[in-house]
């Protein structure tokens, strides 16, 4: 046995043990991920609705569908404000679809949105675009 091995204290050998190190890193990552999830799982889904020219659409109805086993069922509805923004606060799924419509303006295609965990707070990067053919 080398002198370095003799001099290394037990706690240091335990911490630097590859089993302890690997499992410790995994545990730390799990804890960090759970902490992140617990602070970002309010079920908020927000975004914008615009018309074909890119102008915000007020008073458009946004429908949220959630995956129920094998099919998507309507979960809730929201209405856009004057700037075309909407906020849904009761999403409890990780696999959702969104669509918007407004009589006289048109409707958007259903947009699938995949989340990293259930009820993840998310803001759509792309607006829902209403068109007469949608």
């Amino acid at each position, binding site marked *: 046995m080398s002198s370095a091995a003799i001099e290394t204290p037990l706690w240091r050998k335990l911490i630097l043990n*590859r*089993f302890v190190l*690997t499992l410790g890193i995994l545990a730390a990552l799990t804890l960090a991920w759970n902490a992140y999830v617990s602070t970002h799982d309010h079920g908020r889904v927000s975004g914008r609705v615009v018309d074909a020219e890119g102008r915000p659409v007020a008073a458009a109805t946004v429908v949220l569908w959630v995956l129920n*086993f*094998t099919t998507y069922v309507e979960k809730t509805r929201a209405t856009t404000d004057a700037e075309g923004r909407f906020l849904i606060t009761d999403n409890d799924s*990780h*696999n959702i679809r969104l669509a918007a419509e407004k009589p006289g303006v048109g409707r958007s295609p259903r947009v699938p949105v*995949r*989340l*990293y*965990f*259930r009820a993840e707070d998310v803001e759509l990067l792309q607006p829902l675009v209403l068109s007469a053919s949608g």
Partner: protein
Amino acid sequence: MLRYPRWPIHAMLLAVSFLMLVPFYWVVKTSVTGENIFAYPPSVLPKSPHPFYYVDVWYYIPFARYFLNSVVVSALAVIANVVFNALAGYALTREFRAKRFVLLLFLSCMMVPFQATIIPAYLITGRLGLLDSYWGLALPQFSTIVCIFVFKASFDAVPRSLVDAARIDGLAEWRIVWKVMMPLAKGAIATNVILGFIWSWNNFLWPLIVTRSAEMQTLPLGLARFLSYQEDTTGALYAFCIMVLAPGILLFLLAQKEFIRGLASGATKG
């Protein structure tokens, strides 16, 4: 001394390693793309990879519960394997009457498949009141003959004088096992841990028979349940496979040095 160039061997090993890794790569690739495995021409690189099939698996079935069940059962099996196999292996290094008969019995029992003993195993577990419990799930995997022989081979390599010295110093037999033999049998312990873990982790038939409630099911049963739930499962199914395989692969990678050493000692000194 004539030295041959090593690069042809390394090149061949690289090629074989690559061939061995292709199926793993394909499973990982499909788990992040969900593309049809029969697609032609196949895409070698993943197109638009994403982790959402893993999220699906996590929520479609109670994955965390199954994972916990598998971990508990495997931990019980591993601990019991190390303890019982070490004791049995040590006993087989000693001289006693009918030792050859016991060795022959062990070797012949290795030829009996588990399927043939499943009914008595079920009845015994039932009589003990362990059906649908962690202990019941782990019980038939508490000891494996292969691993007993791994310990025996490792203990046989320990010099007899060391054991005699320990005995002269007044150590009891069980302390000789734990204080003298076990520290010298790290390879055998690693082999037992890995084999015990993998066999327990992948076991399907016994948990299928012995569990009655969904809460006690293990990951292989969860995989079967998952398949029965979902139709279009290509991506999620492969993600599930990765999630089931990952702990075993991780354990093997962590302990591969000791594992190979343990198997090699079993192969040469048995």
